[in-house]
């Protein structure tokens, strides 16, 4: 762990300014991506501090934004237009929120199955979607890793890669995205609100994370000193017919081997629309667009669910230890779809 400066921000604009100035003060920004920026926001710190202790992240300045939790950034509001989740709300309070549980069960379930209660009490929503991979080669600086040190190589390809991704990979990186909550947001067509040095902007959740491609070090669309302030989810009748299924090696406190966030719009026994996002199998929260297309207009049966799952993994690339994720991912999705179809949804 290396020394760093620390400051507290009283409001979002001040936080952004402080993070921006960290970049100006220091030398050239080591990497263009958000995660490599010299100024980092400190929320719950459940990923950031962990990676700093491992020397994987070496920010020059931590801008503590926990004070923002008392303001709008910490608020959860639900109304006829939809749901608004302040980025500084904790995972625990979001999971416990009555409207979230009733109208957006996929969010509550994804959060409840993530991490441990202690971590969920600490972690904030904004930081949670930015959680970085658990790839062991990324987390230990003595291995080559294109995500940590671009151009150094990928030790996971050809190494121990049971946890790694089969979708959205490149020859530069196969690290899996470890989170759960982001998959729920993705399936719900959420929007991300961002504040940065250039002001406020918003982008669809589907554009937040970037596949590794040639630049695995650039993980998101966020620019240095940009901060997520909120997530919004549009209201729709189908959000109640939603769930999160997570398959893992043990029953709690484990990352997904495969998970599925499913939002289903059923009318007259047919699928009028759906949102499907997969976790544990991809480099980013993964929208299974092809699976959604397969289901459109068809009754949700074991057969259509299996065809959808087949489509979801058609382009998957297995590695030495993770080939099982194709089969597991398919079975997980089939199970989630059938379960969602059977949900009793009121009004």
């Amino acid at each position, binding site marked *: 762990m290396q020394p760093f400066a620390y400051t507290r921000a009283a409001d979002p604009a001040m936080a952004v300014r402080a993070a921006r100035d960290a970049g100006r003060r220091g030398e050239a920004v080591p990497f263009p991506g958000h995660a490599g920026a010299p100024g980092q926001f400190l929320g719950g710190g459940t990923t950031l501090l962990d990676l700093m202790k491992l020397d994987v992240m070496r920010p020059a300045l931590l801008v503590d934004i926990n004070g923002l939790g008392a303001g709008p950034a910490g608020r959860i509001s639900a109304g006829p237009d939809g749901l608004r989740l302040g980025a500084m709300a904790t995972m625990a309070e979001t999971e416990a929120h009555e409207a979230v549980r009733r109208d957006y069960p996929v969010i509550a379930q994804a959060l409840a199955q993530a991490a441990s209660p202690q971590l969920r009490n600490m972690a904030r929503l904004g930081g949670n979607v930015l959680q970085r991979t658990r790839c062991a080669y990324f987390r230990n600086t003595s291995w080559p890793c294109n995500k940590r040190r671009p151009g150094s190589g990928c030790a996971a390809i050809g190494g121990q890669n049971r946890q790694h991704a089969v979708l959205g990979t490149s020859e530069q990186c196969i690290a899996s995205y470890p989170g759960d909550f982001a998959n729920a947001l993705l399936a719900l067509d959420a929007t991300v609100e961002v504040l940065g040095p250039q002001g406020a902007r918003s982008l669809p959740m589907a554009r937040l994370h970037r596949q590794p491609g040639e630049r695995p070090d650039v993980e998101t669309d966020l620019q240095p000193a940009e901060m997520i302030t909120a997530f919004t989810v549009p209201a729709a009748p189908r959000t109640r017919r939603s769930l999160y299924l997570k398959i893992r090696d043990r*029953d709690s406190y484990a990352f997904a081997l495969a998970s599925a966030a499913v939002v289903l719009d059923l009318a007259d026994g047919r699928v009028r629309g759906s949102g499907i996002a997969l976790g544990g199998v991809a480099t980013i929260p993964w929208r299974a667009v092809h699976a959604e297309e397969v289901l459109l207009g068809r009754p949700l049966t074991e057969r259509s669910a299996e065809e959808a799952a087949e489509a979801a993994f058609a382009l998957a690339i297995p590695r030495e230890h993770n080939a099982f994720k194709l089969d597991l991912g398919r*079975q997980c999705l089939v199970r989630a779809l059938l379960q969602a179809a059977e949900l009793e949804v009121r009004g």
Partner: protein
Amino acid sequence: MNRPVPEPKANMGAAVPRRDARLKVTGQARYAADFAVAEPAHAVLITSSIARGEVTRLELDAAKAVPGVLEIFTHENIGEIAEEAFFGAGGTAANSLRPLAGPEVRYAGQIVAMAVADSLEAAREAAGKVEVVYRSETPTAGFDDPGAETKPVTEVDESHEDPRTGDAQQAYDSAAVTIDQRYTTPTQHHNPMELYSTTAVWEGDRLTIYEPSQWVWGLKHGVARQLGLDPAQVRAVSPYVGGAFGGKATVTPRTAIVALAARRLKRPVKLVVTRDQGFTTASYRAETRHRVRLGADRDGRLLSYMHEGWELTSRMDPYFNAGTDNTVHMYDAGTVWTRVNIVTADRNTPGFMRSPPEVPYMYALEAAMDELAVALRMDPVELRRRNDTMKSPISGARYTSRALMQCYDEAASAFGWAKRDPAPGAMRDGDWLVGWGCATASYPTQMSPATARIRLQPDGTARVQVAAHDLGTGAYTVIGQQAAESLGIAVDKVAVELGDSDLPPGPVAGGSVTTASVCSVVKLACERINRRLGGTGRRPPLDLKAAFEDFGQAVIEDYAEWSPPAIGPAGPRAMYKGGLKIVGGPMDDKLMFAFGAEFVEVRVHRRTREIRVPRITGAFAGGRIVNPRTAHSQYLGGLVWGIGSALHEATEIDRRAARYVNDDIAEYLIPVNADIGEVQIIMVPEEDAEVNPAGVKGIGELANVGTAAAIANAVYHATGIRVRELPIRLEKLLA
């Protein structure tokens, strides 16, 4: 979760609460790293990122420039550390490589440097700035990698003999029903909750080491030899240990390095090893392979038992478990053939980990027994019954007691085994496939010499002193109970002092010897006091005050030594020199074992194949149970551990680099509360006056034996898929 306090049955003591419970839950129990020492310097290790080769250059300038850094210790400046023999060769060391002896790297994660600074922060920063340049050779990671060398144990250890009897091959060839299968167990790490740590404090030429230890007298003598000191100059202190499981039994390389650093810097040095460095600087259970062949007649009588084992070890030391020494006595096999091999690779030397020989070898045998039962179309309990025995098929030596079938009967009845449909996949609950399986648990009853000093006063207060160890097992409590019972005083009037090498030597907390050995010596010491006060050995004086008046002094103190007859009086004398001797299990004339039977229900999801264990029932017979409450905890912890070793635990190795990859407890999985359903424990009363004066069989390492087999057998019953490689992860059950 509230659990009722277990009711004592026949030959069981009172279920008194653990005497250190309140201290521990209120944070008052002081663990090694908690001792306040004056102005300690803080140390952080730098470990090798290669497994084989040498350090060619150490760039230390940047590290030394960190404000507060006192020194970076390397092989170039640490000073002389003498060789200490590997524990398997009569010494105390975890491996025979001298710490920081030179540039050579023999295994990944070997200590190559240690940064010491005024603050932990500075030491950590400096450690991150040490640049180590290596010349690296391609290492051999394990069994299947080029360069792995296989040798029969008989070639590397003259005293080892593979147990055999009769012509097992011929009996196997002519048997009506046979099983020939291979099983593997993975690399595992202890990961005790309390991290490994060492604090070294010099006062003049006297060294005090605060370190979590299962063997303070071994630590004292081992470090004295490494540093060329008189053992009287060294004291090892370890009153509480936050889990050990064998990982804290031997002298690991860090201790001498920290002690020398403290001497050089003339101030105490404290090192708390990080979780990931604990994977490579301490000890572990190495991977094993087995080929088991069983031959039986149509009635299920075992005609032939053949078992070959392969155990991974380092290039440095021929560590082996040879669990066949015990498994050959489990059943009434007509003929037996065994062979154990070691396979050397570029890895650290493995060591003891909870039930070292039994966990892998009993897993293989009990999984094969289930396969045999299926081949015979026989109930697996009935197969064990038909092969139950009261004597060794090898030597004819008799069991001093063996309650295996009572355990099976009680556990089967409590579990509801009679309702089992034997056909695989026949029992379902919605989308979940249900499987029931069982297996035998056993652990040799072992003893070590022990000494103890006891002081008694007229008001009925007493103090027991012995350098034994409480690893969280309840040793303080049961030793206090033994003294109270033997002296006829209240248990809360007995103070117990453990875990300090200034106390009379006690046994290593290994091999489940502590209760049997220490209660035996405490009993002897108490009996001497009783006699001196006018009672008989077994019976304390009726009126203690009057007895003291006759005695003429206000306090009485006595000291006793006890040694298992097979070791004799030389045992305690050797302990004063840091010696270690454990006997028991299979002896020439008798077999001493504790037994158990375990029944498990598993559920496997039809589609996604995750495996859950909603309930497990174990029945155990372990001689005299001094305290049913702490015994219950040991059994409970053992079963939970067993579930983990079946389904979760495995250290993953990058074969190219011979390095561990999942070296933290987020990725090295052990069960969490959510994984543990109903755990039912039945203590079967058993009396065995022959094993030792206390009548105690060690039980700490009993319940986690066989559990992996019971679960594997249940998974087969649920799915029809026989997984022979642990751990059983869901991918092995996906079509």
